[in-house]
């Protein structure tokens, strides 16, 4: 499922336990600073083969925000 794939990407950068990651988890609570955030976005772009525009970055606070952005990108690609 999508959450598992996203959790794998986050774990690669912040070295936490994947089971600690839920949709409600705030990235800052995982120790994600600005540099780690762009690293996670880079990995997401690679894994999902999408482009995440700079403008959406401020709106990404929780893991769920990432899931929503990915779903939007998926819809956009399908349309």
């Amino acid at each position, binding site marked *: 499922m999508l959450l598992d794939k996203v959790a794998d990407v986050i774990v690669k950068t912040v070295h936490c336990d994947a089971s600690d990651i839920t949709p409600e988890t705030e990235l800052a609570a995982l120790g994600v600073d600005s540099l780690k955030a762009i*690293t996670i976005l880079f990995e997401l772009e*690679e894994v999902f083969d999408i482009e995440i525009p700079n403008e959406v970055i401020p709106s990404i606070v929780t893991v769920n925000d990432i899931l929503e952005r990915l779903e939007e990108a998926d819809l956009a690609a399908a349309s």
Partner: protein
Amino acid sequence: MNRRVLITGVGAISGLGLDAASFWDGLKAGRSAIEPLDPPIPDVKISIGATVPEFDPGDYFSQDELTILDRFSQLAVIAAQQAVNDAGLIRGEKMLTDAAAIIGSGCGGKHTDEATYVQLYKKQKSRAHPLTIPKGMPSAAASMVSYHLGIKGPAFALASACASGSHAIIQGMTMIQSGMIDMALVGASDAPFTYGLLKSWDALRVASNDTCRPFSKDRSGMVLGEGAGMLLLESEHHALNRGAKVYAELAGCGMTSDAGHITRPDVEGITNAIINALHHAELNSEQIDYINAHGTATPTNDVVETEAIKRVFGKHAYELAISSTKSMHGHALGASSALELVATTLAMHHELIPPTANFTVADEACDLDYVPNMARKQRIDAAISNSFAFGGLNAVIALKRYSE
């Protein structure tokens, strides 16, 4: 007021081992760390080098820390930590917090840059890794040394190819002499064993696939090494006030540039750099007991350096001891000049001159005393360390045995 500058801590990570103690043990034994590259790098002519043995970055840094540490930064931080420990300093102490960190490098974060270029140019990926810039930038090691040791004074990188370490050391020395700071962590780091860089060295046709034999008639070129050398410099009053152990006095420096050929050494530039160092250190040429030579083992360097030493020292050139420790730690580019000043400092401290290893046959064009193969027990009261970089950037550092 002329403030004297003392060396109160040293650190080294090199082909000879993971710390300054193993570095000195190797030099003392005349042991060359040059080995076949393992694994060999396909499609590269260079097949030997002095790489850091049994090095696991995970022994020194967390996984998280390593994401932003290029190999040259790892080596810099490890050697810097050693120099700080050796000087009896602890992170968070005001004197260390206020210190400068001036870290040279000949080639910077090549591992990081090349990894990104492989993705872009070879694998046709469309994105670069977002840490490429902060991890690979030439000043990354200076930033990481500052970060890991809590140094908040002036910190920056310095590049002058194979003299980067010497120029960084001189910069720290002059900042202390000027009264700007009391303490400086100085040195250089290089990690040049990457595909692109080795191919580029191949193209210059100056690397040996035999071994590094400085001043020997059968020398066939330089051999790359990797590592970092760091020194803790302090103003005299600061060191004495805190009861620091003193290795030597950093007595002076001479810097010149050739304004000439981009790779061929220039006897006049080298000669003037040595003369300037002696003058700055208020030393007569007869007082020099030991020269740690640039000694790359290229056919040209060793003859030109020998000629410059004869011009400066005259008859005394035949009486002083000269060695090239590159025969043991390899040519670690900018880091070499810092490792060589660490070697010179320890030689003065231990009263033992490290040899020129791998020496086989005397060369009539290099007819001085190069201390072949066996270390020599000898007190050193004054010494110089030579570094002559590609691009004609020359730096010579003079050390004196310290007395109050």
